[in-house]
Structure formats: C-alpha cells, structure tokens
C-alpha cells in the first residue's frame, strides 16, 4: 500500500515497510483502547484526529517549517526548558519512546535489563521508525538517571546530542548549577538557530508555555468531580499529545474540551457511574503509545482521576513567574520553576510524597497505583518510601513494575482487580 506521506517519510530516512507495520499496529491498538470507550467527550475528536495524523500532518507541518528555516529540538525529559527553544522561534518536541519497537536493535548496544523507555528511544532511531526523531536538528539529553546518561553516549554515535546537566539534589549549589545550565542551553539554542533570544521573545514563550500548562491544570482540576467527566485514558492522551502538538492550537482545543467537561459536570454526567473506584497513577512517565496500564485499570472497572507523572501533573503544575521581564530574572524564574519538579532522580525527594498525598485528596482517589517501568531504579526504589508514607496517611497503594510488552497482562489484571476489591 502506498501512502500520501511515503515521499516525506522516505526523505526522513524511515524504513517504510517497518513503519507501515508500526502504524497498523498502533491504529489497531488505538481502536481497541480508545474508540471503544463509552460516553467519550465530543472534544476528544480533536485528539483522535491528531493521533490518526501522528506521523502525517504534524510531520508535514514540521517539514514545512524546517524548509522555511526553523530548527527542531527533541527532548526526553521535562527538565529541558521548552521556553528557551520556543523563544528562538524553534520547535520543541517531547519524543515519546512508549513502544516496544526496535528492541532487538537496541539490545545490540544496551543490556537487556535496561528500562523500556531507554531501549525504545534508541530502538526507534536504529530501526528508523520515528519521523519526529529524524526531524530533529538536535536532541537534548540530560543527566537524570544513570541509564539515560549512559545511553545518550551511545545515541550520540547516531545523532547529534547535547547534554544538559540536571543536578540530583536541590541544594543551593545545585540550583546555581542548573541556572548556569539554563544559560548555557540558551546560548546553544541561539547558536543552532542563529536567532537571538530577546527579552520580549522569551517573555512571550514563557506566557505561551504557561498557557498550555494552565489549560492542562484546568483539565486536571475538573477531574476531581464525581462522577469523573473524562476517562484517565483520554486525559493521559491529552497530556501525551501536549508534548508534540503545536502549543497554540493544542491549548485552544483543550480549552474547548474543558468547557464541554464543565458542562458535563454541571449536568452531573460522567464516563463512569458515581461510586466507581477512583485511582491515582503515580510514577514513571507513560509515553505514547504506552496505554497498557490505564487500559488494564479502567478495563477492571475503575476510573483514573490523575497522573502524578511527567506525562501528567509534574509537567504542568508549576508555572514560570510572569512578573519579571529582565533577561536575568526570567532565567532565574525558569530555573526556580524547573527545580521544583519532584522527580525520583533527586535525593531526598520527600516533596513527591506530599504531592501524591495532596493529589489523592483533592482528586478524591480511593487508592494509588504506583507505576515503575521495569528496571527503573529511581522509581522502583523510591516506591518503598512512598508506600510507607501513604500507609501513614491511610491511603492504599499498589506497587506495580512492568515494561511495554503484553506478556504480563493477565497477572497485572489480577493484581489490579484484587487491589480494587480491597479499596
């Protein structure tokens, strides 16, 4: 079968046959997990469209922008300040790495017990399957977990990568280091794009990214309603799409969706009847198309009301201060905002426990499911402390560790169902 985008994909050096296979699987997966849901908000049509064109229209847009001279930056972590990229009139893409593809390729370089996300980002590149990765002029890596750090060194042999140093504590010295890194990143982006980041441009970018965060926070707040007006799967999808869609268009569409959801809440309407068990997910990021756990949880009769995750509230809650206009102050404000993200690569990381507790209360969750990607040490180990802390707070927790493959679906279902029976 030929596709209208074949030419474009060929130019991006994709493996067309394998890529078509990927799109077919993805489409089927999406159908089963998304389109089969009852009572979806109308506004999700926008997301359905975006997903159906995931490697099509959006890539075309990006390709066009590139031929007009724009640069594209790919990121793997919410610590990379998008504001700086946008301020240089470039495109920022949060690369997803949520599929088990190309792992045979990746395993040529990486030990088998490497987390699925890391395997996936190398796998996508080696198997030539991701038009986003291949559109990037520069990939921005960061020094978060050891797995990523070391894998970037390998990735660098295949694509240019720039590493931002993210500290592992939140001491004043660490903040100073990150402040320096933000500035160094700004210089790098200016150099790659050839555009100077002026105060006005940076201010506009700060406001733009904040707007997108605000709408996602609005969405998250609406989910506190009972009955839940939107499924966790759909909310996750919205958070995922936020990483690669055009920020203005995305924000506009999600505002409209939120209006619809508020009307629903007003009418006391939901995707699941009142009394449905409400679950908060907490842990590793779930990148497109990693919908496995939400599907299992909601398939077992619960509804997910929030994500304490980087594809979720860790990426949206805090805004950059908009009250400063001077370059130095704005860079300070960016530093402060990013250094408030409570990721498990930091030590100590008690604020994350407080975040989870607070989310569980405001969203009226009956229990928390902690999700660690298999072989992810930071989150798997931190989950012990989280479990102890939540126990003290009287909030039930289920700890799960799993990867992208489907082979453990049945035992996972048993665990999730048994947890739902308990809470």
């Amino acid at each position: 079968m030929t596709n209208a985008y074949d030419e474009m994909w060929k130019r991006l050096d994709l493996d067309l046959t394998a890529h078509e296979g990927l799109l077919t699987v993805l489409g089927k997966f999406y159908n089963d997990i998304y389109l089969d849901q009852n009572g979806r908000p109308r506004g999700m049509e926008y997301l359905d469209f975006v997903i159906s064109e995931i490697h099509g229209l959006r890539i075309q847009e990006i390709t066009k922008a590139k031929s007009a001279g724009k640069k594209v930056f790919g990121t793997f972590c919410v610590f990379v300040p998008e504001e700086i990229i946008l301020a240089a009139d470039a495109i920022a893409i949060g690369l997803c790495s949520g599929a088990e593809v190309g792992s045979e390729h990746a395993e040529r370089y990486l030990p088998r017990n490497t987390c699925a996300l890391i395997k996936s980002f190398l796998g996508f590149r080696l198997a030539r399957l991701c038009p986003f990765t291949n559109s990037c002029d520069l990939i921005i890596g960061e020094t978060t977990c050891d797995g990523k750090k070391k894998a970037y060194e390998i990735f660098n042999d295949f694509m240019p990568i720039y590493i931002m140093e993210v500290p592992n504590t939140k001491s004043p010295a660490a903040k100073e280091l990150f402040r320096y890194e933000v500035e160094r990143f700004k210089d790098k982006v200016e150099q790659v794009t050839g555009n100077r980041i002026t105060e006005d441009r940076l201010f506009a970018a700060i406001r733009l990214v904040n707007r997108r965060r605000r709408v996602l926070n609005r969405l998250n707040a609406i989910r506190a309603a009972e009955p839940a007006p939107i499924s966790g799967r759909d909310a996750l999808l919205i958070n995922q799409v936020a990483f690669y869609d055009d920020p203005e268009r995305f924000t506009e569409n999600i505002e409209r969706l939120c209006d619809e959801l508020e009307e629903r809440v007003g009418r006391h309407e939901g995707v699941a009847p009142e009394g449905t068990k409400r679950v908060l997910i907490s842990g590793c990021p779930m990148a497109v198309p990693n919908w496995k756990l939400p599907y299992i949880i909601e398939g077992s009769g619960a509804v997910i009301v929030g994500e304490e995750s980087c594809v979720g509230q860790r990426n949206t809650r805090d805004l950059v201060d908009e009250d400063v206009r001077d370059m130095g102050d704005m860079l300070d404000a960016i530093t402060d905002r990013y250094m408030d993200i409570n990721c498990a690569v930091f030590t100590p990381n008690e604020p994350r426990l407080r975040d989870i507790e607070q989310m569980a209360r405001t969203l009226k969750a009956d229990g928390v499911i902690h999700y660690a990607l298999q072989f992810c040490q930071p989150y798997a180990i931190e989950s012990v402390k989280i479990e102890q802390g939540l126990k003290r707070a009287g909030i039930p927790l289920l700890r799960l560790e799993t990867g992208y493959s489907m082979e453990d679906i049945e035992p996972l279902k048993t665990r999730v169902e048994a947890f739902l029976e308990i809470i």
Partner: protein
Amino acid sequence: MFKAGIDVGSRSIELVVLKEREIYLKTRQETSFDYVSQVNNMLNGLDLDATLVTGYGRHLVSRKLEIGHVTEIKAYAAGVRCLYPDAKAILDIGGQDTKAILLDENGRVVRFEMNDRCAAGTGRFLEIMAQALGCTVMDLAELALSGRHCLAISSMCTVFAETEVVALMAKGTRAQDVARALVRSVARRSSAMLRRIGATDRVVFCGGVARNTAVHKELEDILGTKVEVPEEPDYAGALGAALLAN
C-alpha cells in the same frame, strides 16, 4: 440454595458446589485448551442459584458463560477463612504462580504479593526439576524428606536451576540431597514473600504445591511457626468463589 465456585487455573480446574454452606459436590479436571467448553460441561445439568468464577481463566469464562468473576486473591481469602476462621495469612502456590495474602481480623485482604512473570518457585518449577531428577513430583517430595540439608540451589530461574540440577547429578550428588535443596529454595522464596507482606503466624498454605509435604515442612522450618494445610488444598479458591457467589 445451590451456589457454585469454579477456579480455572493454568493446570487444573476445580468446581465446588455448596448447598447452603455445606459442600454438595466437588470435582477437578486438568485444564484443557478449550477450557470454556470444559467449564460449561462441568456445570452441565446442575441447577444453580449463583455461580462465580476465579483463577487465571476467569475473564474468558465470565464473558462467554455470562457469570461473575472474582480474583483468586479474594476467593482464596474467603475459602481459607471458611476452613480456618482465625487464619491471618495465606500462601498459595499453584501451577504458574505464587501468591502471599495478608488478612485482617475480619478476613479481608489487607495486602498481597504475587511472583513476577516467570515460573520460579511454582508448581511448574517443581515439575521440571522432578523431570531433571528423573522422578515424579510426588517422588520429589519423598526424596526431599530423606535428603540432607547440605547444599543450595542458587538459581531461581527454572532454566538455570535445571542446568544446576543436571550438573549436580553428573557430579554424583545424591538425588535426595538435590531434591531437598530444590524444595528448600521454593520454601525460601515463598517465605520471603510472606515476610514482605508482614505475615508472621497463622499461615495457611494452599494451592496444588501445598500437597508437597516436603515444601510444607521446610516452610514451617524457615518461618519458625506452624503452617496449616487444608485437607484438599487445591479447592480453597473454588470454595471461596462459591461462598462469594450470590
């Protein structure tokens, strides 16, 4: 009132029918490829007021035969508490998985642990090890009871453990001692799970592997407490499902 509980496990299917709270009927079959028809046949001719299915095949059976389903964890909790009203923890070792369940005073599940995706330490593990020793699973228990506690099997992985067993046998190690070490490794792994959920005493051991007297004995030894095994340990799940059916 007649209520039925069915436990569709990876190796066997158990059916328990209760008349009020008394056991009226119980049967057991090896799980076949088409277990939905199998369950249908087992239920054939019974006039039931309520039925509930549990076990790894519960979803498919529930959907096809339009009966409710419950997890093994809740079913075992109900079944075991009926047999031992003061039980505080359950260890269930079946064909392909191991579960440790902690109960509160009212018999409700407080915490549970399950083994990861591999078959280490399960019924299947023991079957394969028995094969490597050239005996049946029942013989393995007998052998182990007469074995000395003088060596350890270090691999948990079924494949590696098998290699280890073959190597030990080739070196001329006594089969009894190898069997003892194998049983010990299963008991060790299971007791670690029990410890993780905070189970200390009043443990009930069920599932197919509970028939293995050697594992039972090692478990008591490691935990330092008496461990109860029901007369028919593989029926606890089906019994629990029958009790929960309504």
